[in-house]
């Protein structure tokens, strides 16, 4: 066992995951594994089940069938905050800032309730404070630390959303359409932030519609169509896959 390189052991493995809403099959028998350190792009047309998959993996929704292993541990039955404490983090498609709290306090929540809730040494109040400002500096929001989220622009809101997810000190981060509605330069900014996080050792799953962003970011691409995984492989191969072309461009 010790001879095997660590990277070949998947950080996340999803086996036969299925989710239905009444009679509608949102996810059908999804198999997926994510290696540590990977940058995975998850694409698919609207309504193909991308966000549902993230919701099932992060515990916001509960899948009826299948099981999920994270770092060798079964996630089935754990509720969202327990998964966060294990090292799964997410940003929301529509930013959900704590709108009555200042930016610093927005980041204080995950530091106190996720990082300090883990076993081992805890951050002191002063350390939490420093860490909040450090995180805000990393995403370029340091000078707005005492402001409320409503004072932020759209791109700043996305950055706050990412910073709050990163504050939980995750090993795996789901960035759910972190760039929707942003201008090309703003997209570049967010990608730069994500790449740096990945270099720091966070495995990232990027759910995105902007193909240029996905292609420049991902080392692997997974395509969902109507709740089924239809492709999984290197980005340049996947986009040439006829099935994927058909899903995106029609017959």
């Amino acid at each position: 066992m010790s001879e095997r390189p660590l990277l070949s052991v998947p950080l996340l493995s999803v086996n036969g995951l299925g989710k239905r809403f009444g009679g509608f099959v949102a996810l059908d028998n999804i198999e997926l594994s994510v290696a540590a350190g990977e940058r995975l792009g998850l694409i698919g047309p609207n309504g193909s089940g991308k966000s549902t998959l993230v919701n099932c993996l992060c515990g916001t929704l509960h899948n009826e069938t299948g099981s999920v292993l994270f770092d060798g541990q079964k996630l089935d039955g754990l509720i969202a905050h327990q998964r966060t404490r294990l090292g799964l983090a997410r940003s929301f498609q529509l930013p959900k800032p704590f709108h009555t709290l200042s930016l610093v306090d927005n980041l204080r929540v995950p530091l106190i309730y996720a990082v300090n809730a883990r076993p081992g040494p805890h951050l002191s109040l002063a350390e939490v404070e420093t860490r909040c400002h450090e995180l805000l500096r990393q995403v370029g929001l340091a000078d707005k630390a005492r402001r409320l989220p409503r004072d932020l622009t759209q791109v700043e809101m996305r950055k706050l959303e990412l910073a709050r997810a990163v504050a939980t000190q995750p090993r795996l981060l789901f960035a759910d359409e972190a760039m929707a509605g942003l201008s090309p330069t703003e997209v570049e900014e967010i990608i730069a932030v994500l790449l740096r996080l990945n270099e720091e050792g966070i495995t990232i799953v990027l759910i995105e519609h902007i193909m240029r962003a996905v292609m420049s970011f991902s080392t692997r691409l997974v395509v969902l169509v109507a709740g089924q995984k239809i492709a999984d492989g290197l980005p340049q191969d996947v986009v040439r896959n006829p099935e994927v072309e058909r899903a995106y461009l029609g017959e």
Partner: protein
Amino acid sequence: MRNWTFWITAAAVGIVFLVLSRVFFTNEYYFFAAYVVLQYIVLSTAWNILGGYTGYINFGTGAFFAIGAYSSAVLHKMPALTEAWFGIHTPPIPLPVMMLVGGIVSGVLGLGTGYLTLRLRGVFFAIATLALTVVVQTLIVNWDYVGGSRGIYIIRPADAPLGGGYIQYLYTLMLVLAVIAVGIARTIERSTLGLGFAAIRDDEQAAEAAGVPTLRLKLIATTLSGALMGMAGAPLPYYVTYLDPASSFNLAYAVNSVAMPVIGGMTSWIGPVIGSILLGTIQQLATVTISSALNLLIVGLLLIGFVIIAPNGIVGLVRARRRKRAGALEALAQERTA
């Protein structure tokens, strides 16, 4: 201000009030009126721990309050019961103990209700708590030991501890409880618990994603809120001396304990205090000078007025003005440097 300095200040304010009232309240009526205002400080502060901090609107104040009152009524009859059944003579139970018991019973009710209803959100939670009042009231109406729908007469002990009349004693206890309730609310507000509550209020899904155990925190809020309401209700039998379901489950308690934080401001401990002093005093004045039926009309009109003019209450109004001034100063400073 640090927590302990706040507690000391609050205690000092309480003592000053106590001394001043003994000097200036020449007529017993003033104690009766002040007791009601203090009772509303406790009720609205308790309500605000759940409603203002975590954002769950509770219309069941009446239930928690009355449960506190009725647990006192049961305890009041307890010595007679033990005498009749076991022939053991027991002394009457002191009121502070009754308040503690009332708090525990209502706290357990809060925990149970929370567990059953916290999956509901927004207006559905409010409806469930309203239904709780009806259910609990029905139980009390059908419980003969505490008088059923006839109600029950409670005879006050002949002499009050601490000197003065019995109403002074009730007033003192409620003042102490108000100081404790406000102290608890403010301590929570500044603690990590308060931060978790605020996260839940702002966005529950995001709070979960940030690691906040939302269900556990909400249960803490319902339990604490219910317990304080029960403690506020425990002295009621001795205040009114005649306890009946119709008046102790009165909807006015629920309406007032929602209206007071809304008018004062829900995000801060001082909001409910301001709201209940303001509204409580106006109601007492109106009762004496105009009519007791006018109370709810005043509440209604004030609520409408505040929702239109200051949706974040008096505290929100002051904060907005302060922020505007700070913004203007900032702009001025930038102009000067430029």
